[in-house]
C-alpha cells in the first residue's frame, strides 16, 4: 500500500523532525494513551502531541521490576521501563508528559515516573462514571491543562486556534472512521494490521501529514479491486493494543481469521465521535472526549461499552470475539467473566479470552488457542 509506505517514511524521520522543531522552540508534549487527552489543545498551543504507545517488549517490563512490583498492568510497567531507561526516545524528547489518570495502573506510571525521573508530569483526572458532577470535573481538568499548555508554550489558546485544531482532528477521525467502516463490506479491503498501523501512526505522526496519508489511503481503497479472502470475521477487543504488540493480530491472520474491527481502551485512537463546533469549545471537547466517548472497562457500570461491542459485532457481521487483555488489569479481567454470556445471548457469538505479559514464551500457547478458536468459528 502506497500510503503505508508514506507513513513508514514519515515515522522513520519523525524523531529527527521533532528534534528540529524543538530546536526551533516548539514544545513536544507526550501523553499516555486512553483517548482522554484532547490533542486539539496541544495543537492549538503550537506544541506537538506525541502519544507514548510503544509496548510489547518484555525487557521493558522486566526493567520496571526495579521500580514497582509485578502486579501492575503489563503496558503500564513497560511505560515505567521506557520512562526510566530512556529506551523509548520519545520519552527523552518530551517537554511535558500529560497523564489523564484513568485508573490505578496509569496512576502508577505517573507516580513512579514523577519520583524516579526528571520528566515534568501533568496528571489530570478522568472520572469513572458519567453524570453532571463527573463531566464538570473532567472539564475542570482540561481547563487546567489549557492553562498549563499556555504557560509552557507562551501561546494563548484562542477560540480561533482551537477551532482550527478541532477541524484538523475531526478530519483525521472522520477519515479513520470512513476507512474502518469499509471493513463492514465482505470481503474486507484493508487488513487489521494495516488499519492498526494507520491508527497507531496517527498517534505519533504530524497531524497534517497524517490527514494526507489517510486521504490517500481512502482514495486507494476506493479504487482497489476486491480480492476474495476467505476466513471467519473477528472482533478484537481488550485493554491495550500497543505499537509493537502485534502477536495476536499476526497469529489471528496467520490462522486464517480476519480481524475486521478493533475496540481498545488504549492504543486505538477513538474515531467514532466528532467534536461539535459549539460556541463553547472547551465544553465541546468535554462532550466528545468524555460524554460521548465509549468508556473503557474502568468505567462503572461498564454496560455502555459492552452494548457497543454487541453492536459492533452485529454491524461488522463477525463470527467471534477475541478478548485480549494484559495481565493484572482487573477491570477487563472481571468483565471477561460475564461478557461471554451476554455476547452469546444477545449476538449468538463465542468469545476467546487471551492474556499477555509481553512474554515471548506466550506465543506458542497463544497460537494454539487462537488457531483452535478460528477453526471452531470457521463457517
Amino acid at each position, binding site marked *: 500500500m502506497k500510503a503505508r509506505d508514506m507513513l513508514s517514511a514519515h515515522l522513520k524521520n519523525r524523531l529527527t523532525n521533532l528534534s528540529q522543531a524543538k530546536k526551533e522552540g516548539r514544545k513536544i508534549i507526550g501523553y499516555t494513551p486512553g483517548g482522554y487527552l484532547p490533542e486539539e489543545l496541544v495543537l492549538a498551543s503550537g506544541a506537538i502531541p506525541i502519544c507514548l504507545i510503544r509496548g510489547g517488549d518484555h525487557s521493558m517490563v522486566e526493567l520496571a521490576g526495579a521500580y514497582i512490583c509485578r502486579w501492575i498492568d503489563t503496558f503500564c510497567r513497560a511505560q515505567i521501563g521506557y520512562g526510566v531507561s530512556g529506551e523509548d526516545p520519545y520519552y527523552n524528547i518530551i517537554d511535558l508528559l500529560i497523564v489523564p489518570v484513568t485508573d490505578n495502573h496509569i496512576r502508577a506510571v505517573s507516580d513512579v515516573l514523577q519520583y524516579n525521573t526528571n520528566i515534568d508530569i501533568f496528571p489530570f483526572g478522568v472520572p469513572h462514571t458519567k453524570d453532571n458532577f463527573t463531566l464538570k470535573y473532567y472539564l475542570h481538568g482540561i481547563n487546567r491543562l489549557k492553562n498549563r499548555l499556555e504557560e509552557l508554550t507562551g501561546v494563548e489558546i484562542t477560540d480561533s486556534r482551537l477551532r482550527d485544531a478541532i477541524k484538523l482532528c475531526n478530519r483525521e477521525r472522520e477519515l479513520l472512521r470512513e476507512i474502518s467502516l469499509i471493513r463492514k463490506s465482505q470481503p474486507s479491503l484493508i487488513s487489521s494490521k494495516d488499519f492498526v498501523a494507520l491508527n497507531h501512526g496517527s498517534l505519533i505522526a504530524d497531524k497534517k501529514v497524517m490527514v494526507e496519508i489517510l486521504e490517500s489511503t481512502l482514495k486507494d481503497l476506493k479504487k482497489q479491486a476486491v480480492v476474495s479472502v476467505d476466513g471467519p470475521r473477528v472482533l478484537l477487543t481488550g485493554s491495550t493494543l500497543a505499537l509493537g504488540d502485534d502477536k495476536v493480530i499476526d497469529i489471528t491472520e496467520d490462522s486464517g481469521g480476519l480481524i475486521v474491527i478493533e475496540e481498545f481502551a488504549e492504543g486505538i485512537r477513538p474515531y467514532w465521535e466528532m467534536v461539535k463546533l459549539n460556541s463553547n469549545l472547551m465544553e465541546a471537547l468535554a462532550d466528545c472526549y468524555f460524554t460521548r466517548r465509549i468508556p473503557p472497562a474502568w468505567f462503572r457500570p461498564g454496560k455502555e461499552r459492552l452494548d457497543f461491542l454487541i453492536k459492533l459485532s452485529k454491524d461488522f457481521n463477525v463470527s467471534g470475539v477475541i478478548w485480549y487483555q494484559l495481565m493484572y488489569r*482487573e477491570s477487563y479481567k472481571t468483565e471477561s*467473566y460475564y461478557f461471554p454470556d451476554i455476547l452469546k445471548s444477545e449476538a449468538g457469538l463465542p468469545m476467546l479470552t487471551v492474556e499477555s505479559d509481553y512474554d515471548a514464551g506466550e506465543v506458542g500457547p497463544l497460537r494454539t488457542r487462537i488457531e483452535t478458536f478460528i477453526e471452531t468459528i470457521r463457517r
Partner: protein
Amino acid sequence: MANYYDELLRLCGFEDEEINKERFRIEKAFQRLEIGSQDMNLAESWIRQNHDLELRAVRKLLGIWLKELIDLVLAKDEGKKLVYYGFPTIAGPAAAIASASKDVYCVCPDVVLCYTMGQIFNKLTPILEAGEENGLPPGHGLCSLQQIRVGGMAKGIIPVPDLVLTSSYYCDMGSKADELLHQKYGHPAVYADGSMDSKWGEFPNYLLQRANFLGEELEKTLSKASEILGIEITTEARHEGASRSKKLFGALRDLVELMKGTDTQPLSIVELEIARRLTSGSVSKRVMGDGPNIIALLNREIKERIKKGVGVVENGAPKAMILMAHFSDPSIMRMMENSGLSIPVTVHTTLASRIMKTTPFIAGEKLAEEQLERGPFHGSYGEIKRAAEAAQEFNVDGVIFNYLFNCRPIAMLSHLLKQFVEKQTGIPVLSLEMDVYDSRAYSAAALRTRVETFADMLRARKASSGA
C-alpha cells in the same frame, strides 16, 4: 439446654442468658454458614492460640463481630433493608443511612466475614474458593476481599442486598466486583466517584474542585440511597451518624494514644486491630453503640497492664510499624510479634484515629475533606508521607510495609514507600509482599524468614546505637 457452641460463645464474651435467648437465631445462622459441632474444637483452639482472652474486652470484641455475623446472615429473614458498602472508603454516608431507619442494616459484609469466619473459625477458605469459582479466579492478582464478598453470596451465606454503595476513586476492583454481582443478582449499586489525580508532592494541599467533586458524589449516594430504600435521611440522622462515629473514633484515638505512650507493648496488634476495624466493618447500632464502650473497657484493662508493667512482647524489643494488620488470619501478626518485634500500631490505624475530630454532621463535602486530608485517598505521595510521619511520631525502629499484592493503590507503592520513608526518616523499611485477607499463599510460615531477619537486623541496629 447447653449446646455445642456454648463454650465458644462464652469465650467470645457472650453471657449465658444471651446465648439462651438467641439460640434460635444462632443455630439458624450457623446452619447457613455451615458451622457445626465439628468446627468448635478448631475454633476454640484457634482463638485461644491467637487472641488475648485474659482481657474481657477482647472477648467482647470477638463477640460483637460474631453478633454482626449473625445479624448479617439473617438480615433479610428478619425483614431488614440490607445495604452493603464497599471497603475502605464509604463508611461515612453509610453511617447516616443506618441512623435514618431502624429497618436498615448497613454493613461491609466481606470485612465481617474476615473478622469472624477467619479470625474466629479459621474457615474462610471455602468462601474464597467460591469467589474464585464465581468470577474472580486465582492467578490474576484480583482482590481477595472481593473474592470473599462474591464467594459469600455465591454460597448463599450472605444475602443479596437491597442496595450496594460503592466507591470508585481509590480502588478499581471493588466497584467492578459489585458490577459482577449486579450482573448476577440484579441488585442496584450507587457509585461514588472521585479522582486520584494529585501531583507528586502536592499533599496536603488539594484542589478545591476535587473536594467539591468528591463531596457531590458522596452526597449523591445519600440521595440515591434515600430514593432506592424509600427512607428519609434527615438532618437528625446525619447528626446521629456523625455523633455515633465520633464516639467510636474517639475511643480508638484513646487506645492509640495509650499504645503510643508506653514502651511496654501492653496489647497485641491482633487485638488492637479487631477493635480498630469496628470503625469500618459495620455501622450498625450495636457497633456504633456498644463498640465505644468495649474499646473503653479495653483501654481500662490496658492501663492496668501498663501500671503493672505487663507487656505482650519482650521488654526492649525493637518497635516496628506495619501498614495494616491481617484481617482474617491473626497467626501472621502473632508470628511478627513472636519474631521479637513490638508492633504498637499500624499506619492505617494512626490515620483512622486522626479523623472524625471535628465533623459534627455527615455531609458530602466534609467527608470529602476528611478523605483527602487523611493521605491515602489523596494520592500515593499522601499515603507515603503519612506513613513517614506516623513512623516518626511513634518513634519506631523499623517499618514493615506489608503491601497487598492484589490491591493496586497499595501495590503500586511497593518500591516508592521504602525509598521515600528510608530517605526522609532514616528508618529501615522491609517491603513485604502479602495478602491481608487470604493467607493461603502468604501464610505465617511463608513470611517468617523475612520478618525474622528484619527483626534481627533491627535488634542489631538498636544494640549498636545503644552501645
